[in-house]
Protein backbone atom coordinates (compact mmCIF):
# COMPACT_ATOMS: atom_id res chain seq x y z
CA UNK A 1 0.00 0.00 0.00
CA UNK A 2 1.48 3.29 -1.07
CA UNK A 3 0.05 6.60 -0.03
CA UNK A 4 1.20 9.85 -1.62
CA UNK A 5 0.22 13.43 -0.82
CA UNK A 6 2.17 16.28 -2.35
CA UNK A 7 1.71 19.99 -2.42
CA UNK A 8 4.19 22.35 -4.00
CA UNK A 9 4.01 25.73 -5.73
CA UNK A 10 6.32 26.89 -8.50
CA UNK A 11 5.96 30.42 -9.85
CA UNK A 12 3.64 29.20 -12.59
CA UNK A 13 2.79 25.65 -11.70
CA UNK A 14 1.12 24.12 -8.68
CA UNK A 15 1.39 20.45 -7.83
CA UNK A 16 -1.42 19.19 -5.63
CA UNK A 17 -1.55 15.44 -5.73
CA UNK A 18 -3.16 12.88 -3.46
CA UNK A 19 -3.59 9.18 -4.11
CA UNK A 20 -3.31 5.71 -2.63
CA UNK A 21 -2.47 2.58 -4.55
CA UNK A 22 -1.99 -1.05 -3.67
CA UNK A 23 -1.57 -2.26 -7.24
CA UNK A 24 1.35 -4.24 -8.58
CA UNK A 25 1.71 -1.81 -11.45
CA UNK A 26 0.51 1.75 -11.04
CA UNK A 27 0.49 3.89 -14.15
CA UNK A 28 0.75 7.67 -13.97
CA UNK A 29 -1.02 8.92 -17.03
CA UNK A 30 -1.69 12.38 -18.37
CA UNK A 31 -0.66 15.15 -20.71
CA UNK A 32 2.71 16.79 -20.82
CA UNK A 33 3.82 19.02 -17.97
CA UNK A 34 1.21 18.04 -15.42
CA UNK A 35 3.54 16.82 -12.69
CA UNK A 36 4.02 13.10 -13.33
CA UNK A 37 7.81 13.26 -13.24
CA UNK A 38 7.74 15.52 -10.21
CA UNK A 39 5.57 13.01 -8.39
CA UNK A 40 7.87 10.14 -9.20
CA UNK A 41 10.91 12.18 -8.13
CA UNK A 42 9.18 12.96 -4.87
CA UNK A 43 8.58 9.26 -4.24
CA UNK A 44 12.26 8.60 -4.96
CA UNK A 45 13.17 11.30 -2.42
CA UNK A 46 14.80 13.50 -5.03
CA UNK A 47 12.27 16.29 -4.85
CA UNK A 48 10.93 17.52 -1.56
CA UNK A 49 7.61 19.32 -1.88
CA UNK A 50 6.62 22.21 0.35
CA UNK A 51 4.08 19.94 2.04
CA UNK A 52 3.74 16.23 1.66
CA UNK A 53 3.30 12.75 3.05
CA UNK A 54 4.57 9.54 1.51
CA UNK A 55 4.03 6.14 3.01
CA UNK A 56 5.12 2.80 1.54
CA UNK A 57 3.68 -0.20 3.37
CA UNK A 58 4.46 0.47 7.04
CA UNK A 59 7.26 2.94 6.41
CA UNK A 60 6.71 6.68 6.28
CA UNK A 61 9.19 8.18 3.83
CA UNK A 62 8.09 11.76 3.97
CA UNK A 63 6.04 13.70 6.42
CA UNK A 64 6.67 17.42 6.20
CA UNK A 65 4.40 17.96 9.21
CA UNK A 66 6.90 16.02 11.30
CA UNK A 67 9.87 17.22 9.17
CA UNK A 68 10.53 13.59 8.43
CA UNK A 69 12.43 12.92 5.23
CA UNK A 70 14.04 9.57 4.57
CA UNK A 71 16.92 10.25 2.18
CA UNK A 72 16.82 8.58 -1.25
CA UNK A 73 19.70 6.32 -0.26
CA UNK A 74 17.56 4.65 2.36
CA UNK A 75 14.45 4.26 0.26
CA UNK A 76 15.80 1.52 -2.00
CA UNK A 77 13.85 2.53 -5.06
CA UNK A 78 14.83 1.66 -8.60
CA UNK A 79 14.59 4.87 -10.59
CA UNK A 80 14.88 5.26 -14.35
CA UNK A 81 14.58 8.94 -15.28
CA UNK A 82 13.19 10.29 -18.50
CA UNK A 83 16.55 10.45 -20.26
CA UNK A 84 17.85 7.32 -18.54
CA UNK A 85 20.59 9.10 -16.57
CA UNK A 86 23.36 6.70 -17.51
CA UNK A 87 26.80 7.46 -16.12
CA UNK A 88 28.76 8.51 -19.20
CA UNK A 89 32.11 7.78 -17.60
CA UNK A 90 31.31 4.17 -16.81
CA UNK A 91 30.92 1.19 -19.10
CA UNK A 92 27.63 -0.61 -19.44
CA UNK A 93 28.83 -3.26 -17.00
CA UNK A 94 29.95 -0.67 -14.48
CA UNK A 95 26.69 1.20 -14.83
CA UNK A 96 24.69 -1.91 -14.06
CA UNK A 97 26.99 -2.84 -11.16
CA UNK A 98 26.80 0.65 -9.67
CA UNK A 99 24.33 -0.13 -6.92
CA UNK A 100 25.99 -3.45 -5.98
CA UNK A 101 29.24 -2.18 -4.57
CA UNK A 102 28.68 -3.81 -1.19
CA UNK A 103 28.44 -7.23 -2.81
CA UNK A 104 31.32 -9.69 -3.18
CA UNK A 105 32.95 -9.16 -6.58
CA UNK A 106 32.17 -12.67 -7.80
CA UNK A 107 28.52 -12.49 -6.90
CA UNK A 108 28.27 -8.99 -8.27
CA UNK A 109 29.76 -10.09 -11.56
CA UNK A 110 27.28 -12.90 -11.81
CA UNK A 111 24.27 -10.74 -11.00
CA UNK A 112 25.35 -8.18 -13.59
CA UNK A 113 25.86 -10.87 -16.20
CA UNK A 114 22.43 -12.34 -15.57
CA UNK A 115 20.82 -8.96 -15.81
CA UNK A 116 22.66 -8.09 -19.04
CA UNK A 117 21.49 -11.35 -20.55
CA UNK A 118 17.93 -10.76 -19.40
CA UNK A 119 18.02 -7.32 -21.01
CA UNK A 120 19.59 -8.59 -24.22
CA UNK A 121 22.72 -6.56 -23.65
CA UNK A 122 25.24 -9.38 -23.89
CA UNK A 123 28.42 -8.23 -25.58
CA UNK A 124 27.87 -4.58 -24.78
CA UNK A 125 29.27 -4.73 -21.24
CA UNK A 126 32.43 -2.85 -22.15
CA UNK A 127 30.85 -0.06 -24.19
CA UNK A 128 30.28 3.45 -22.95
CA UNK A 129 26.72 4.85 -23.01
CA UNK A 130 27.78 7.29 -25.73
CA UNK A 131 28.40 4.38 -28.04
CA UNK A 132 24.94 2.88 -27.63
CA UNK A 133 21.75 3.46 -29.54
CA UNK A 134 18.81 5.01 -27.71
CA UNK A 135 17.10 1.70 -27.07
CA UNK A 136 20.25 0.08 -25.81
CA UNK A 137 20.75 2.95 -23.39
CA UNK A 138 17.26 2.50 -22.09
CA UNK A 139 17.75 -1.18 -21.37
CA UNK A 140 20.98 -0.44 -19.52
CA UNK A 141 19.11 2.02 -17.32
CA UNK A 142 16.43 -0.56 -16.62
CA UNK A 143 19.01 -3.21 -15.84
CA UNK A 144 20.80 -0.90 -13.45
CA UNK A 145 17.60 -0.18 -11.54
CA UNK A 146 16.39 -3.79 -11.45
CA UNK A 147 19.63 -5.45 -10.47
CA UNK A 148 19.52 -3.98 -6.97
CA UNK A 149 16.15 -5.65 -6.32
CA UNK A 150 14.54 -2.43 -5.16
CA UNK A 151 11.45 -2.18 -2.95
CA UNK A 152 9.75 -0.04 -5.55
CA UNK A 153 10.46 0.52 -9.21
CA UNK A 154 9.89 3.95 -10.75
CA UNK A 155 10.05 4.10 -14.52
CA UNK A 156 9.69 7.53 -16.10
CA UNK A 157 8.83 6.71 -19.71
CA UNK A 158 11.36 3.95 -19.58
CA UNK A 159 9.89 1.77 -22.29
CA UNK A 160 9.43 4.43 -24.93
CA UNK A 161 12.31 4.24 -27.35
CA UNK A 162 12.08 0.53 -27.99
CA UNK A 163 10.96 -1.22 -31.11
CA UNK A 164 7.67 -3.07 -30.69
CA UNK A 165 9.12 -6.57 -30.50
CA UNK A 166 11.70 -5.67 -27.90
CA UNK A 167 9.27 -3.56 -25.98
CA UNK A 168 6.90 -6.43 -25.72
CA UNK A 169 9.68 -8.69 -24.53
CA UNK A 170 10.82 -6.10 -22.01
CA UNK A 171 7.30 -5.66 -20.78
CA UNK A 172 7.23 -9.36 -20.14
CA UNK A 173 10.62 -9.16 -18.44
CA UNK A 174 9.55 -6.29 -16.22
CA UNK A 175 6.35 -8.14 -15.36
CA UNK A 176 8.26 -11.33 -14.60
CA UNK A 177 10.77 -9.63 -12.35
CA UNK A 178 8.04 -7.64 -10.77
CA UNK A 179 6.06 -10.79 -10.05
CA UNK A 180 9.06 -12.81 -8.94
CA UNK A 181 10.31 -10.26 -6.45
CA UNK A 182 6.92 -8.64 -5.90
CA UNK A 183 8.28 -5.16 -6.54
CA UNK A 184 5.50 -2.59 -6.85
CA UNK A 185 6.00 -0.65 -10.05
CA UNK A 186 5.21 2.96 -10.91
CA UNK A 187 5.19 3.63 -14.60
CA UNK A 188 4.89 6.88 -16.46
CA UNK A 189 3.91 6.27 -20.04
CA UNK A 190 2.10 8.04 -22.81
CA UNK A 191 1.38 4.83 -24.62
CA UNK A 192 -2.23 3.90 -23.90
CA UNK A 193 -1.72 0.36 -25.03
CA UNK A 194 1.26 -0.05 -22.74
CA UNK A 195 -0.57 1.59 -19.86
CA UNK A 196 -3.49 -0.78 -20.41
CA UNK A 197 -1.32 -3.84 -20.81
CA UNK A 198 0.95 -3.29 -17.85
CA UNK A 199 -1.07 -1.13 -15.50
CA UNK A 200 -3.32 -2.59 -12.84
CA UNK A 201 -4.25 0.81 -11.53
CA UNK A 202 -4.17 4.19 -13.24
CA UNK A 203 -3.66 7.60 -11.76
CA UNK A 204 -4.66 10.22 -14.27
CA UNK A 205 -3.15 13.69 -13.97
CA UNK A 206 -4.31 17.00 -15.30
CA UNK A 207 -2.65 20.34 -14.57
CA UNK A 208 -0.92 19.25 -11.39
CA UNK A 209 -3.89 17.39 -9.95
CA UNK A 210 -5.19 13.84 -9.97
CA UNK A 211 -8.46 13.82 -11.91
CA UNK A 212 -9.22 10.12 -12.00
CA UNK A 213 -7.96 6.90 -10.48
CA UNK A 214 -9.04 3.36 -11.10
CA UNK A 215 -8.53 0.17 -13.06
CA UNK A 216 -7.77 0.77 -16.71
CA UNK A 217 -10.90 -1.05 -17.89
CA UNK A 218 -13.02 1.24 -15.77
CA UNK A 219 -11.24 4.32 -17.13
CA UNK A 220 -11.63 3.08 -20.68
CA UNK A 221 -15.34 2.62 -20.14
CA UNK A 222 -16.04 5.60 -17.93
CA UNK A 223 -13.42 8.31 -18.44
CA UNK A 224 -13.97 11.16 -16.00
CA UNK A 225 -13.31 13.94 -18.50
CA UNK A 226 -13.54 14.35 -22.25
CA UNK A 227 -9.80 14.82 -22.28
CA UNK A 228 -9.17 11.46 -20.66
CA UNK A 229 -11.75 10.00 -23.02
CA UNK A 230 -9.82 11.20 -26.03
CA UNK A 231 -6.58 9.94 -24.54
CA UNK A 232 -7.98 6.43 -24.18
CA UNK A 233 -9.27 6.43 -27.73
CA UNK A 234 -12.89 7.47 -27.31
CA UNK A 235 -12.71 9.62 -30.42
CA UNK A 236 -16.38 10.45 -30.79
CA UNK A 237 -17.34 13.13 -28.29
CA UNK A 238 -20.29 15.50 -28.66
CA UNK A 239 -22.64 17.81 -26.83
CA UNK A 240 -26.39 17.29 -26.59
CA UNK A 241 -29.44 18.07 -24.48
CA UNK A 242 -31.46 15.68 -22.34
CA UNK A 243 -34.83 15.28 -24.04
CA UNK A 244 -36.91 12.69 -22.20
CA UNK A 245 -36.96 9.50 -20.17
CA UNK A 246 -38.79 6.92 -22.30
CA UNK A 247 -38.27 4.20 -19.68
CA UNK A 248 -36.70 3.72 -16.27
CA UNK A 249 -32.91 3.98 -16.53
CA UNK A 250 -33.09 5.15 -20.13
CA UNK A 251 -32.48 8.73 -21.21
CA UNK A 252 -33.02 10.27 -24.64
CA UNK A 253 -30.48 12.85 -25.76
CA UNK A 254 -31.17 15.30 -28.55
CA UNK A 255 -28.04 15.42 -30.67
CA UNK A 256 -28.54 17.87 -33.51
CA UNK A 257 -31.35 16.44 -35.63
CA UNK A 258 -30.87 12.97 -34.15
CA UNK A 259 -32.04 11.36 -30.93
CA UNK A 260 -29.87 8.84 -29.07
CA UNK A 261 -30.86 6.65 -26.14
CA UNK A 262 -28.38 6.05 -23.32
CA UNK A 263 -28.51 3.88 -20.22
CA UNK A 264 -28.76 6.57 -17.59
CA UNK A 265 -31.67 7.55 -15.40
CA UNK A 266 -30.28 10.40 -13.37
CA UNK A 267 -30.14 13.23 -15.89
CA UNK A 268 -32.76 16.00 -15.63
CA UNK A 269 -34.55 16.97 -18.83
CA UNK A 270 -33.11 20.08 -20.43
CA UNK A 271 -29.61 19.60 -19.08
CA UNK A 272 -26.67 20.12 -21.51
CA UNK A 273 -24.55 17.01 -21.57
CA UNK A 274 -21.33 15.83 -23.10
CA UNK A 275 -21.35 12.25 -24.26
CA UNK A 276 -19.13 9.98 -26.29
CA UNK A 277 -18.59 6.52 -27.69
CA UNK A 278 -15.63 4.50 -28.91
CA UNK A 279 -14.92 4.12 -32.64
CA UNK A 280 -15.05 0.32 -32.30
CA UNK A 281 -18.51 0.47 -30.72
CA UNK A 282 -20.12 1.57 -33.95
CA UNK A 283 -21.80 -1.28 -35.83
CA UNK A 284 -22.76 -1.20 -39.48
CA UNK A 285 -26.30 -2.39 -40.03
CA UNK A 286 -26.70 -4.87 -42.90
CA UNK A 287 -29.20 -3.46 -45.34
CA UNK A 288 -30.52 -7.00 -46.09
CA UNK A 289 -31.47 -7.83 -42.51
CA UNK A 290 -34.51 -6.63 -40.58
CA UNK A 291 -33.87 -4.24 -37.68
CA UNK A 292 -34.19 -5.72 -34.22
CA UNK A 293 -35.21 -2.35 -32.82
CA UNK A 294 -35.58 1.18 -34.11
CA UNK A 295 -33.60 3.37 -31.70
CA UNK A 296 -29.97 4.54 -32.06
CA UNK A 297 -29.91 3.76 -35.78
CA UNK A 298 -28.29 6.58 -37.71
CA UNK A 299 -28.08 7.42 -41.37
CA UNK A 300 -24.47 8.27 -42.33
CA UNK A 301 -22.38 9.03 -45.41
CA UNK A 302 -18.92 7.44 -45.77
CA UNK A 303 -16.26 10.13 -46.18
CA UNK A 304 -13.05 8.16 -46.10
CA UNK A 305 -11.75 4.64 -45.56
CA UNK A 306 -8.15 4.37 -44.38
CA UNK A 307 -6.06 1.33 -43.62
CA UNK A 308 -4.05 2.33 -40.57
CA UNK A 309 -1.73 -0.45 -39.56
CA UNK A 310 -3.80 -3.22 -38.08
CA UNK A 311 -6.99 -1.25 -38.26
CA UNK A 312 -9.43 -0.03 -40.85
CA UNK A 313 -10.48 3.50 -39.93
CA UNK A 314 -13.69 4.88 -41.43
CA UNK A 315 -14.75 8.51 -41.28
CA UNK A 316 -18.47 9.10 -41.48
CA UNK A 317 -20.83 12.06 -41.36
CA UNK A 318 -24.39 11.93 -40.13
CA UNK A 319 -26.89 12.49 -42.96
CA UNK A 320 -28.59 15.25 -40.97
CA UNK A 321 -26.28 17.72 -39.25
CA UNK A 322 -23.08 16.36 -40.75
CA UNK A 323 -21.45 15.42 -37.40
CA UNK A 324 -18.25 13.53 -37.93
CA UNK A 325 -17.99 9.98 -36.56
CA UNK A 326 -14.88 7.81 -36.37
CA UNK A 327 -15.28 4.08 -36.76
CA UNK A 328 -12.64 1.42 -36.27
CA UNK A 329 -12.93 -2.07 -37.74
CA UNK A 330 -10.59 -4.94 -38.40
CA UNK A 331 -9.36 -4.79 -41.98
CA UNK A 332 -10.98 -8.14 -42.82
CA UNK A 333 -14.36 -6.97 -41.53
CA UNK A 334 -13.93 -3.78 -43.50
CA UNK A 335 -13.47 -5.78 -46.66
CA UNK A 336 -16.36 -8.06 -45.89
CA UNK A 337 -18.69 -5.11 -45.42
CA UNK A 338 -17.44 -3.55 -48.69
CA UNK A 339 -17.45 -0.04 -47.28
CA UNK A 340 -16.48 2.58 -49.88
CA UNK A 341 -16.25 6.37 -49.72
CA UNK A 342 -19.40 8.12 -50.90
CA UNK A 343 -21.77 5.36 -49.77
CA UNK A 344 -24.83 6.08 -47.66
CA UNK A 345 -25.11 3.50 -44.86
CA UNK A 346 -26.87 2.91 -41.57
CA UNK A 347 -25.08 2.44 -38.28
CA UNK A 348 -26.09 1.33 -34.82
CA UNK A 349 -24.62 2.73 -31.61
CA UNK A 350 -25.70 0.57 -28.71
CA UNK A 351 -27.18 2.30 -25.72
CA UNK A 352 -24.73 0.92 -23.22
CA UNK A 353 -21.75 1.95 -25.42
CA UNK A 354 -22.59 5.63 -24.98
CA UNK A 355 -20.89 7.30 -22.05
CA UNK A 356 -22.27 10.52 -20.57
CA UNK A 357 -19.76 12.69 -18.76
CA UNK A 358 -20.59 14.04 -15.36
CA UNK A 359 -18.50 17.15 -15.98
CA UNK A 360 -20.48 20.12 -17.16
CA UNK A 361 -19.33 22.77 -19.61
CA UNK A 362 -17.72 22.66 -23.00
CA UNK A 363 -15.74 19.53 -23.84
CA UNK A 364 -12.04 20.37 -23.90
CA UNK A 365 -10.29 19.50 -27.16
CA UNK A 366 -13.55 18.27 -28.64
CA UNK A 367 -13.22 16.32 -31.92
Amino acid at each position, binding site marked *: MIRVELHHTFPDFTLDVRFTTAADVTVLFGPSGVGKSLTV*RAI*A*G*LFTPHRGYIQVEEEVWLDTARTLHI*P*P*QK*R*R*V*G*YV*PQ*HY*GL*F*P*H*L*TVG*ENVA*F*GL*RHMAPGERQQRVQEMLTLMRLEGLADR*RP*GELSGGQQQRVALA*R*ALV*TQPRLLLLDEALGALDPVLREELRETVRTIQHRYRIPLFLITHDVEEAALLGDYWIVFEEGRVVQTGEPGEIFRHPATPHIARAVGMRNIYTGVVRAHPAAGITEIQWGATVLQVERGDLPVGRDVIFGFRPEDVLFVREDRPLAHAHNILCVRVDEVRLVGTDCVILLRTCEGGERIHVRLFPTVCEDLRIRPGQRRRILIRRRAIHVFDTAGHPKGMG
Partner: protein
Amino acid sequence: MMWSPLWLSLRVALFATLLGLATGLPIAYILARKDSPWVDTLGALTNLPLVLPPTVLGYYLLVAFGYNSPLGRFLDRLGIPLVFTWRGAVLAAWMVSMPLIIQSAGAAFAAVDRELEDVARTLGESEWGVFWRVTFPLARPGILAGTLMAFARALGDFGTTLMVAGNIPGRTQTMAIAIYDAVQMGDQQRANALVLVLTLTALAILLLLRRLTHHLPGGPT
Protein backbone atom coordinates in the same frame (compact mmCIF):
# COMPACT_ATOMS: atom_id res chain seq x y z
CA MET B 1 74.12 21.41 -7.80
CA MET B 2 71.41 21.02 -10.42
CA TRP B 3 69.60 17.88 -9.27
CA SER B 4 69.08 18.76 -5.68
CA PRO B 5 66.99 21.88 -6.47
CA LEU B 6 65.11 19.89 -9.12
CA TRP B 7 64.13 17.13 -6.70
CA LEU B 8 63.24 19.67 -4.08
CA SER B 9 61.10 21.57 -6.57
CA LEU B 10 59.30 18.44 -7.65
CA ARG B 11 58.70 17.37 -4.08
CA VAL B 12 57.46 20.79 -3.06
CA ALA B 13 55.20 21.09 -6.12
CA LEU B 14 53.83 17.61 -5.57
CA PHE B 15 53.00 18.20 -1.92
CA ALA B 16 51.60 21.64 -2.64
CA THR B 17 49.37 20.26 -5.39
CA LEU B 18 48.11 17.41 -3.24
CA LEU B 19 47.45 19.82 -0.40
CA GLY B 20 45.78 22.13 -2.89
CA LEU B 21 43.50 19.34 -4.02
CA ALA B 22 42.67 18.30 -0.49
CA THR B 23 41.71 21.82 0.51
CA GLY B 24 40.63 23.24 -2.83
CA LEU B 25 38.18 20.55 -3.91
CA PRO B 26 35.87 20.91 -0.90
CA ILE B 27 35.87 24.68 -1.31
CA ALA B 28 35.24 24.35 -5.04
CA TYR B 29 32.37 21.97 -4.38
CA ILE B 30 30.74 24.36 -1.95
CA LEU B 31 31.22 27.24 -4.36
CA ALA B 32 29.57 25.27 -7.14
CA ARG B 33 26.64 24.00 -5.16
CA LYS B 34 25.58 26.66 -2.73
CA ASP B 35 24.10 29.83 -4.13
CA SER B 36 24.31 32.71 -1.68
CA PRO B 37 26.05 36.09 -1.48
CA TRP B 38 28.32 34.69 1.23
CA VAL B 39 29.46 31.85 -0.90
CA ASP B 40 30.04 34.21 -3.81
CA THR B 41 32.20 36.38 -1.60
CA LEU B 42 34.12 33.34 -0.46
CA GLY B 43 34.64 32.49 -4.12
CA ALA B 44 36.07 35.89 -4.86
CA LEU B 45 38.21 35.73 -1.71
CA THR B 46 39.84 32.53 -2.84
CA ASN B 47 41.27 34.47 -5.77
CA LEU B 48 43.14 36.85 -3.48
CA PRO B 49 46.40 34.90 -3.29
CA LEU B 50 46.59 35.52 -7.05
CA VAL B 51 46.12 39.24 -6.63
CA LEU B 52 48.81 39.83 -4.03
CA PRO B 53 52.39 40.18 -5.24
CA PRO B 54 54.11 36.93 -4.24
CA THR B 55 56.69 38.61 -2.02
CA VAL B 56 53.98 40.45 -0.18
CA LEU B 57 51.96 37.30 0.24
CA GLY B 58 55.14 35.67 1.43
CA TYR B 59 55.67 38.42 3.93
CA TYR B 60 52.22 37.92 5.40
CA LEU B 61 52.75 34.19 5.58
CA LEU B 62 56.08 34.79 7.25
CA VAL B 63 54.39 36.90 9.88
CA ALA B 64 51.52 34.49 10.33
CA PHE B 65 53.53 31.29 10.52
CA GLY B 66 56.83 32.70 11.76
CA TYR B 67 58.43 32.09 15.12
CA ASN B 68 56.94 35.25 16.52
CA SER B 69 53.41 34.12 15.93
CA PRO B 70 51.57 31.82 18.31
CA LEU B 71 50.87 29.50 15.36
CA GLY B 72 54.52 29.40 14.41
CA ARG B 73 55.62 28.69 17.95
CA PHE B 74 53.03 25.97 18.25
CA LEU B 75 54.24 24.31 15.06
CA ASP B 76 57.79 24.65 16.24
CA ARG B 77 56.97 22.94 19.49
CA LEU B 78 55.35 20.13 17.52
CA GLY B 79 58.68 19.79 15.74
CA ILE B 80 57.33 20.85 12.38
CA PRO B 81 58.43 24.43 11.96
CA LEU B 82 57.39 25.87 8.63
CA VAL B 83 59.49 28.90 7.86
CA PHE B 84 62.94 28.32 6.43
CA THR B 85 62.19 24.64 5.86
CA TRP B 86 61.01 22.81 2.78
CA ARG B 87 57.60 22.68 4.42
CA GLY B 88 57.57 26.43 4.22
CA ALA B 89 58.15 26.17 0.51
CA VAL B 90 55.16 23.82 0.34
CA LEU B 91 53.06 26.32 2.28
CA ALA B 92 54.04 29.08 -0.13
CA ALA B 93 53.48 27.01 -3.25
CA TRP B 94 50.18 25.77 -1.86
CA MET B 95 48.91 29.30 -1.28
CA VAL B 96 49.74 30.50 -4.77
CA SER B 97 48.43 27.43 -6.57
CA MET B 98 45.28 26.52 -4.66
CA PRO B 99 43.16 29.28 -6.26
CA LEU B 100 43.76 27.68 -9.64
CA ILE B 101 42.34 24.38 -8.42
CA ILE B 102 39.39 26.05 -6.74
CA GLN B 103 38.35 28.04 -9.78
CA SER B 104 38.79 25.25 -12.31
CA ALA B 105 37.21 22.54 -10.23
CA GLY B 106 34.40 24.88 -9.21
CA ALA B 107 33.41 25.49 -12.81
CA ALA B 108 33.64 21.77 -13.51
CA PHE B 109 31.52 20.79 -10.51
CA ALA B 110 28.88 23.31 -11.51
CA ALA B 111 28.61 21.69 -14.93
CA VAL B 112 27.89 18.18 -13.66
CA ASP B 113 24.39 16.91 -14.46
CA ARG B 114 22.57 16.80 -11.15
CA GLU B 115 20.25 14.08 -12.41
CA LEU B 116 23.15 11.64 -12.51
CA GLU B 117 23.86 12.36 -8.87
CA ASP B 118 20.20 11.78 -8.13
CA VAL B 119 20.26 8.42 -9.84
CA ALA B 120 23.32 7.44 -7.82
CA ARG B 121 21.46 8.38 -4.65
CA THR B 122 18.56 6.12 -5.52
CA LEU B 123 21.09 3.35 -6.07
CA GLY B 124 21.95 3.65 -2.39
CA GLU B 125 25.16 5.57 -2.77
CA SER B 126 25.98 7.84 0.17
CA GLU B 127 26.61 11.54 -0.46
CA TRP B 128 30.30 10.79 -0.10
CA GLY B 129 30.07 7.97 -2.62
CA VAL B 130 28.00 10.11 -4.99
CA PHE B 131 30.80 12.63 -4.96
CA TRP B 132 33.59 10.16 -5.60
CA ARG B 133 31.83 7.87 -8.04
CA VAL B 134 29.83 10.41 -10.04
CA THR B 135 30.55 14.07 -9.44
CA PHE B 136 34.31 13.79 -9.27
CA PRO B 137 34.84 11.64 -12.37
CA LEU B 138 32.45 13.79 -14.39
CA ALA B 139 34.25 16.94 -13.30
CA ARG B 140 37.61 15.33 -13.89
CA PRO B 141 38.65 17.28 -17.01
CA GLY B 142 38.21 20.59 -15.20
CA ILE B 143 39.88 19.30 -12.07
CA LEU B 144 42.73 17.97 -14.15
CA ALA B 145 43.21 21.32 -15.85
CA GLY B 146 43.28 22.99 -12.45
CA THR B 147 45.71 20.44 -11.08
CA LEU B 148 48.07 20.85 -14.01
CA MET B 149 48.02 24.62 -13.64
CA ALA B 150 48.53 24.37 -9.90
CA PHE B 151 51.43 21.99 -10.32
CA ALA B 152 53.06 24.25 -12.88
CA ARG B 153 52.52 27.32 -10.75
CA ALA B 154 53.86 25.53 -7.68
CA LEU B 155 56.93 24.48 -9.63
CA GLY B 156 57.48 28.02 -10.78
CA ASP B 157 56.79 29.90 -7.59
CA PHE B 158 59.69 31.93 -6.47
CA GLY B 159 58.73 35.12 -4.70
CA THR B 160 56.55 33.60 -2.03
CA THR B 161 58.78 30.60 -1.51
CA LEU B 162 61.88 32.67 -1.12
CA MET B 163 60.18 34.79 1.48
CA VAL B 164 58.80 31.92 3.53
CA ALA B 165 61.46 29.30 3.02
CA GLY B 166 64.50 31.41 2.42
CA ASN B 167 67.22 30.16 0.16
CA ILE B 168 69.19 27.51 1.94
CA PRO B 169 71.14 25.62 -0.71
CA GLY B 170 70.37 21.93 -0.50
CA ARG B 171 67.53 22.54 1.90
CA THR B 172 65.14 25.11 0.54
CA GLN B 173 66.68 26.14 -2.74
CA THR B 174 64.09 25.19 -5.32
CA MET B 175 64.70 25.18 -9.03
CA ALA B 176 62.95 28.51 -9.45
CA ILE B 177 65.26 30.11 -6.90
CA ALA B 178 68.32 28.50 -8.45
CA ILE B 179 67.35 29.87 -11.85
CA TYR B 180 66.77 33.29 -10.39
CA ASP B 181 70.18 33.16 -8.77
CA ALA B 182 71.85 32.20 -11.99
CA VAL B 183 70.12 34.93 -13.96
CA GLN B 184 70.95 37.53 -11.36
CA MET B 185 74.59 36.47 -11.27
CA GLY B 186 74.69 36.94 -15.00
CA ASP B 187 75.52 33.27 -15.45
CA GLN B 188 73.39 33.02 -18.53
CA GLN B 189 74.64 29.59 -19.53
CA ARG B 190 73.79 28.03 -16.25
CA ALA B 191 70.46 29.81 -16.19
CA ASN B 192 69.60 28.49 -19.64
CA ALA B 193 70.61 24.97 -18.65
CA LEU B 194 68.47 25.11 -15.53
CA VAL B 195 65.53 26.54 -17.44
CA LEU B 196 65.85 23.77 -19.99
CA VAL B 197 65.90 21.09 -17.30
CA LEU B 198 62.95 22.62 -15.47
CA THR B 199 60.80 23.13 -18.54
CA LEU B 200 61.53 19.70 -19.96
CA THR B 201 60.73 18.09 -16.63
CA ALA B 202 57.57 20.13 -16.31
CA LEU B 203 56.54 19.31 -19.88
CA ALA B 204 57.14 15.62 -19.34
CA ILE B 205 55.14 15.55 -16.13
CA LEU B 206 52.28 17.61 -17.53
CA LEU B 207 52.07 15.40 -20.61
CA LEU B 208 52.27 12.26 -18.53
CA LEU B 209 49.53 13.43 -16.18
CA ARG B 210 47.34 14.34 -19.11
CA ARG B 211 47.95 11.02 -20.82
CA LEU B 212 47.36 9.02 -17.68
CA THR B 213 44.07 10.64 -16.88
CA HIS B 214 43.01 10.49 -20.50
CA HIS B 215 42.87 6.75 -20.31
CA LEU B 216 41.17 6.49 -16.99
CA PRO B 217 37.46 5.82 -16.96
CA GLY B 218 35.84 9.20 -17.21
CA GLY B 219 38.50 10.71 -19.38
CA PRO B 220 37.42 11.76 -22.84
CA THR B 221 37.28 8.67 -24.98
